[in-house]
């Protein structure tokens, strides 16, 4: 540029010099010519010479002018080019900045929930660096934002549709599950029907899990609510009941804690997906081992399978999938044959602060560790019915016991007998020996065999029991209330204090089967029956006091 501008200034002067040389030469030639030719031709020659000189002078000047003009033009041209290059460079830089900084910022704001117009105002207008953007670029940004906004809206609505469909399926499955449970109770005595019901129940649970997965991937939280804490053991069995091959899962040393109600469903679901993975990707004859131990941060649930070893690469892929899911993937990324498991676990773990990691197991398979945070755990008693969990099934029985107790004669009358049975339960309940033994049994069985709990409530004149099917009171209850006061119980070791009446007996830890057995014993005792006279307690004493 400097080079271009300098020439015109120092070429300005030489114009005269450039013209001078040809003019002087021509003048000299003319003068020489006119001197050499004959005097007659001298004048025309001089005139011609002068004209030629003039022409040459004019031409030279013109030529020079033209050259100078070209030079100036070129200089201008180069200047323009330089300017344009500069413009292009800065434009490029601007574009880069737009793509690298402005657009991402704008899109981020859009995702947060602002409308395209708001984003334009915040990002473009409010920023000094962006305010001077050309109109076309502003237009472009705006359009891009509009398109993204529309897409997001469409995707959102698609997801919502997914979720709402999933919710409906869940509702149906839930209702069907509770109806199936009713039917299972109802047909519990018919093994064929019952087994078929269980099979349907299992299938329903699998459908339910799929619906749950779709809902979770659609960004919703699990719908099912558990109002009360549920023991971890039940949670894990709940997870087992939602996978296909639950038979292969073994639960070992499950920590005795309960999970707070709100966290039960996500935990069940996450465990179910991990268990499903474990059973699905290991040979069918291997077992899957589950343990749950307490760690500093909460409870670590370990799910270990004996499947193919997880190569480092596969592990990386799986973890990557988890990480992606935790970052929030959408349904479109799942592909045609989606492997939902990890995506679901990732989603759930992000929503509920669970930590999941996959490692190689000592058995060669995969060990998935799920850390349940301490906030989800409660060590208090879990009131949620978990059937079978020892702690909860016992109270139920003791409750029933208290109902039964009033049927059973007060301890004083019956107690003597436990000396035979109570302390040594392992002796297979001193079984009725011989024929008399048999006498007692049928009475109870006969009652039990009836569907509607027939209860002996009254007696006919000729001494036969009359049954009423609807009574709540168990066998023979009406007979017992008017028991005379119990005789001093000092004799029997069971009774804690003499002052305790029927209440003491009730509070006592007494296995629920005892009363029936007592009855059995009572009748068995006949061989050495002692006639007590016509005491109304005769029948009881007969057996009990033997």
């Amino acid at each position, binding site marked *: 540029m400097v080079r271009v501008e300098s020439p015109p200034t120092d070429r300005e002067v030489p114009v005269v010099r450039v013209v001078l040389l040809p003019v002087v030469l021509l003048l000299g030639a003319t003068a020489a010519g006119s001197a050499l030719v004959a005097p007659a031709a001298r004048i025309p020659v001089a005139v011609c010479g002068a004209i030629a000189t003039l022409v040459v002078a004019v031409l030279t000047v013109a030529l020079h002018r033209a050259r100078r003009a070209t030079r100036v033009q070129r200089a201008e041209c180069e200047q323009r080019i330089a300017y344009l290059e500069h413009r292009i460079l800065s434009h490029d830089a601007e574009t880069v900045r737009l793509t690298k900084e402005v657009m991402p910022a704008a899109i981020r704001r859009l995702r947060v929930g602002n409308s395209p117009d708001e984003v334009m105002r915040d990002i473009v207008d409010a920023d000094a660096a962006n305010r001077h953007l050309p109109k076309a670029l502003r237009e472009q940004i705006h359009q891009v934002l509009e398109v993204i906004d529309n897409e997001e809206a469409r995707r959102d609505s698609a997801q919502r549709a997914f979720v709402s469909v999933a919710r409906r399926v869940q509702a149906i499955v839930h209702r069907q599950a509770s109806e199936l449970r*009713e039917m299972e109770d109802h047909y519990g005595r018919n093994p064929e029907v019952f087994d078929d019901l269980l099979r349907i129940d299992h299938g329903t649970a699998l459908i339910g899990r799929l619906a749950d997965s779709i809902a979770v991937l659609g960004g919703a939280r699990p719908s099912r609510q558990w109002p009360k804490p549920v023991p971890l053991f039940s949670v894990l069995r709940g997870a087992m009941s939602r996978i296909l091959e639950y038979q292969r899962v073994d639960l070992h040393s499950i920590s005795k804690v309960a999970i707070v109600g709100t966290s039960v469903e996500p935990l069940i679901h996450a465990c179910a997906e991990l268990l499903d993975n474990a059973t699905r990707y290991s040979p069918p004859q291997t077992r899957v081992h589950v343990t749950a131990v307490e760690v500093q941060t909460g409870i670590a649930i370990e799910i270990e399978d004996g499947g193919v070893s997880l190569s480092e690469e596969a592990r990386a892929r799986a973890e990557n999938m988890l990480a992606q899911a935790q970052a929030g993937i959408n349904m479109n990324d799942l592909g045609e044959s989606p492997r939902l498991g990890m995506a679901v676990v990732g989603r759930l773990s992000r929503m509920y602060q669970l930590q999941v990691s996959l490692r190689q197991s000592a058995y060669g398979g995969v060990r998935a560790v799920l850390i349940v945070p301490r906030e989800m755990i409660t060590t208090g008693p879990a009131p949620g019915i978990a059937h*079978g969990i020892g702690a909860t*099934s016992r109270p139920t029985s003791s409750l029933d016991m208290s109902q039964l107790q009033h049927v059973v004669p007060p301890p004083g009358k019956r107690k003597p007998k436990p000396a035979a049975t109570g302390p040594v339960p392992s002796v*297979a309940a001193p079984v009725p020996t011989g*024929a008399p033994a*048999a*006498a007692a049994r049928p009475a109870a069985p006969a009652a*039990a065999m009836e569907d509607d709990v027939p209860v002996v409530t009254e007696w006919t004149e000729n001494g036969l029991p009359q049954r009423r099917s609807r009574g709540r009171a168990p066998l023979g209850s009406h007979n017992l209330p008017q028991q005379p006061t119990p005789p001093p119980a000092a004799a029997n070791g069971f009774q804690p204090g003499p002052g305790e009446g029927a209440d003491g007996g009730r509070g006592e830890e007494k296995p629920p089967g005892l009363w029936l057995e007592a009855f059995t014993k009572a009748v068995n005792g006949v061989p050495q029956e002692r006639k007590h006279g016509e005491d109304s307690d005769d029948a009881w004493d007969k057996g009990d006091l033997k």
Partner: protein
Amino acid sequence: MSGPRRERRKADPDLLDPERLYVITGDLDDSERAALDLVTMVVAQAEPSPTFQPEQAAILRLCQAPLSVAEISAYLGLPFSVVTSLLSDLLATELIESRAPIVRATLPDRSLLEAVMHGLQKL
């Protein structure tokens, strides 16, 4: 027996357990149910240990004294078939002993029955 329970179940479906019954019974296909009926008496032969399934542990605790299958079913709140399946496992490992009810035909001693009847009548 089934009437009240059905009502109860209907009343609070939210209190359903997370685990389904088939998880408790275990594998359906290869389990052979022992011949148990509602009135079979069951006695535990061992103390429950922590390694047992909770239901089985509960059965062992309940059956310290002889108990009928129907009662076990009622106390555990589990259908009869589930209980028999659990009991079958326990029977197979000889942790419990079952006694079939005595058939009436083998019953004896009419005088004994009468004595009992008189005794009861006088109550």
